[in-house]
């Protein structure tokens, strides 16, 4: 009985004390009083776990959400899901913060003042859609449906396909993805060597050595979880090649000069071939273009072997890569010895003026290492596509779709690219090839996340109807005429393509975890409503009542209901890897040759792809005078980077991965450079490029190569420094191609 009545004593004395001080007992500061839930809270204490798919990046991890009395309170990884096997990164978990974020747009908003003034009038969905339908109807009536442009960041979900479907029926070719600003360099390389657009699927589980080119594996969001899930079984050795020391766990870091990845890959190939470390049988059977070959005309063409033997000895490339020849030799032998190697890369390595060639060189290195025999590439991901009936295309739509894309992808300006979002501002401003009348901006805050803020600003202001579909009043939304708040992925039904490891096929399901908290709609429902409003052939092409109806029709009957149980659909993981390459790997891409042949004659003359479809690597091009701007800017995507609305999530912004105030923007700089510039740790500095400048806090660290300045994307101002140069063939945005200078602010 020794501790009897402690509580009473405490509270009694507290009451007495409070009374003596003339104030009553305070509110119970431990009680959580939650606001009411739309649709009722259910039974008191009712708790359930709902399976869904994460939407914070394109990887498509399976999640399960704990819902207590109608409110989501925790997100965890789905242990059954083949992509992440139960784990979940910080981004995915922060989705909860987005769901209940106070700054979410609560209903459609119509501009109430000048552009960018920040005055809004709430509108009903009918009004907003009516306005859009009126505008689009006029476009079609005038025979210019191509003047509708759609910039869309989310390619994983079936909503993207619905937009494509809609645009086909409507008649615009301008469905512009964000690929060129992301990992298109790698995806196009896969397309031109293996025939399918997408990231290569690596066998992470059996890979014993990962050579990460320009990525620290965490930043490469599509592959991070596969790598981590594989590492949970047995962690492979990780060698990172990048100008900045990676934030993730690694075994070796090889600092490389920006833009030098392709040369390194070819040099490694050179050593492998020179020292007889390649499997010639495998290359003969499954790879075309390795040795000299005869084309259809019977002319002998030089093979890949001749190319690398001639120009890519490590001694020849060490100047451009900044990596000693001996290191390359050692690395190549290590790769060859290990055999089960994954050469991973994402947008980091290929975001340069030589992006496509770099991507192809890396793909070639992967194949040279015999990766298809297990441990590396097993092919490209097989993607699910919705099975909808082809849209009804009328004459107007046919004519419109035939018009050139405004971003110039596939034209002489960008013969090998699929999209080129950075070209949109100039096209709008110059009305080239035709004026843009309506612009839909989805899934990306272009103004804040893409380079060239001024150009984007001018262009967006010029569009007569700018519609931003977003949950946030972000920078792009501030310029819009209409802001349509989309329901967040935790509130809606959707089907997404996940990025599983090799040998698997995964479609994820998103299902409403909670009832929509605000007056928001799924983007798919908006498309269907617009199509219905337009009527005619467009309306007939999208005959569904709602997006969930469309989803039900997109997959075999009953699929969606089944998927609710598991959170998606996937095959049982194949244990009998290696799955062979789906087709011959073309080191010497015939697809490129064909495309170049198809391009206009003038283009052929002026911009012939060198080396006939081999990875023709060129030294990178940098924007800015080397004397005035002596340092290379290395923008990177930190772990917490979320393309669309990431800065609204304070959990991510406060991740303790940097010391000191996590909200500040840091410029990481090598001690040698810092000493030369007179900059000390913690100093306020101004980073300047030929395009803009941005203040930051100097972080002096030997984790950055001499001559480079590393800055994290996602914070205001970094994207403004980048000069939007690009790969002249593929249109890949050269994030890594800007020179800057750093000055101390006194």
């Amino acid at each position, binding site marked *: 009985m020794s501790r*009897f*009545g*402690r509580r*009473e004593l405490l*509270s009694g004395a507290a*009451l007495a004390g409070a009374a003596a001080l003339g104030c009553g007992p305070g509110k*119970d500061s431990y009680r959580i009083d939650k606001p009411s839930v739309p649709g009722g809270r259910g*039974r*008191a*204490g009712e708790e359930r776990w709902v399976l869904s798919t994460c939407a914070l990046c394109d990887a498509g991890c399976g999640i399960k959400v704990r819902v207590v009395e109608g409110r989501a309170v925790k997100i965890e990884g789905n242990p059954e899901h083949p992509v992440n096997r139960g784990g979940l990164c910080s981004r995915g978990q922060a989705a909860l913060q987005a769901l209940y974020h106070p700054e979410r747009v609560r209903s459609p908003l119509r501009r109430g003042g000048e552009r960018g003034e920040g005055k809004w009038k709430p509108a009903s969905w009918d009004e907003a859609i009516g306005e859009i339908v009126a505008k689009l109807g006029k476009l079609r009536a005038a025979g210019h449906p191509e003047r509708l442009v759609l910039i869309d960041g989310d390619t994983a979900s079936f909503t993207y396909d619905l937009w494509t479907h809609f645009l086909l029926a409507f008649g615009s070719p301008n469905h512009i993805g964000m690929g060129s600003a992301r990992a298109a360099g790698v995806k196009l390389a896969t397309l031109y060597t293996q025939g399918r657009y997408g990231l290569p699927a690596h066998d992470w589980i059996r890979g014993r050595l990962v050579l990460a080119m320009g990525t620290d594996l965490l930043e490469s969001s599509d592959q991070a979880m596969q790598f981590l899930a594989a590492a949970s079984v047995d962690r492979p050795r990780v060698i990172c090649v990048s100008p900045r020391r990676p934030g993730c766990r690694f075994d070796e870091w090889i600092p490389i000069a920006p833009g030098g990845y392709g040369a390194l890959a070819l040099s490694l190939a050179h050593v492998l071939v020179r020292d007889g470390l390649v499997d010639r049988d495998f290359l003969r059977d499954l790879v075309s273009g390795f040795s000299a070959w005869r084309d259809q005309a019977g002319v002998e063409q030089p093979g890949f072997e001749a190319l690398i033997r001639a120009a890519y000895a490590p001694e020849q490339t060490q100047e451009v890569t900044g990596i000693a020849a001996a290191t390359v030799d050692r690395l190549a032998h290590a790769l060859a010895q290990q055999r089960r190697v994954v050469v991973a890369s994402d947008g980091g390595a290929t975001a340069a003026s030589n992006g496509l060639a770099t991507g192809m060189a890396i793909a070639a290195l992967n194949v040279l290492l015999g990766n298809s025999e297990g441990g590396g590439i097993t092919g490209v991901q097989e993607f699910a596509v919705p099975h909808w009936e082809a849209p009804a295309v009328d004459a107007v739509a046919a004519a419109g779709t035939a018009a050139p894309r405004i971003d110039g992808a596939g034209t002489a300006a960008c013969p090998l690219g699929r999209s080129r979002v950075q070209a949109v501002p100039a096209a709008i401003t110059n009305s080239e090839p035709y004026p843009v009348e309506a612009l839909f901006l989805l899934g990306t805050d272009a103004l804040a996340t893409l380079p060239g803020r001024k150009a984007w600003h001018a262009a967006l202001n010029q569009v007569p109807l700018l519609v931003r579909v977003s949950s946030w009043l972000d920078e792009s939304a501030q310029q819009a005429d209409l802001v349509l708040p989309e329901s967040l992925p935790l509130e809606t039904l959707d089907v997404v393509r996940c990025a599983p490891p090799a040998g698997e096929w995964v479609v994820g399901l998103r299902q409403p975890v909670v009832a929509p908290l605000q007056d928001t709609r799924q983007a798919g429902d908006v498309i269907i409503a617009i199509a219905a409003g337009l009527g005619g052939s467009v309306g007939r092409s999208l005959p569904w009542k709602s997006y969930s109806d469309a989803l039900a029709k997109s997959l075999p009957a009953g699929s969606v209901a089944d998927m609710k149980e598991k959170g998606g659909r996937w095959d049982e993981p194949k244990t009998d890897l290696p799955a062979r390459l789906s087709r011959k790997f073309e080191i010497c891409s015939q697809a490129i040759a064909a495309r170049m042949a198809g391009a206009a004659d003038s283009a052929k003359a002026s911009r012939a792809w060198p080396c006939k479809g081999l990875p023709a690597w060129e030294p990178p091009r940098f924007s800015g005078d080397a004397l005035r701007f002596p340092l290379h800017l290395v923008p990177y995507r930190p772990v917490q980077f979320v393309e669309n609305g990431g800065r609204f999530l304070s959990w991510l912004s406060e991740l303790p991965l940097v010391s000191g105030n996590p909200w500040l923007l840091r410029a990481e700089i090598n001690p040698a450079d810092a000493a030369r510039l007179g900059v000390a740790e913690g100093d306020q500095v101004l980073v300047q490029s030929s395009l803009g400048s941005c203040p930051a806090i100097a972080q002096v660290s030997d984790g950055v190569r001499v001559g480079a300045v590393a800055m994290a994307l996602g914070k205001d101002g970094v994207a403004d420094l980048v000069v939007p140069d690009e790969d002249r063939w593929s249109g890949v945005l050269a994030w890594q191609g800007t020179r800057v200078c750093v000055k101390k602010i006194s």
Partner: protein
Amino acid sequence: MLLVAVVALFAGAAGARPVPAVSPRQPLPMSHKRHIAKDMKCRACHQGVEGEALASFPTLADCMDCHKTPQGHDPAEPEVRAFATSGQDLAWVRLNRLAGHVYFSHAAHVTLASMKCEDCHRDMHTVDRALTEADMHQNMGACVACHRNRHASLDCLACHK
């Protein structure tokens, strides 16, 4: 001795701390007495009591399981059907609320420790309506005393959160 008296005084004073003076009206004039007279068990309506932390209240659907057809001659009974047709949610007012930093599991007490409802709650045999006032005046002293008597855990974390 003086100290003991002071302790006792404090303990008593805190134990008799008044509950909120507002008497919330429950949505239905549900008679516990009549339900119990029909030999219904507490868990029939308070479904979480054996397996979950919260005992929880019946939803309208639970009520309608029986009350689709008239069950007796209580003049109040049609009200539940009226409620069902009106489409409103049956929002019982929760009167017994623990302090925010206390965890209490009905399952642990009812199922694992085999305690009766009446050990803490009032006997509902005689109560001819839904509760309009909290019937729990438990405090930490009572919890600790009972835990000690039954050799249950006295760890702070057994109940605090």
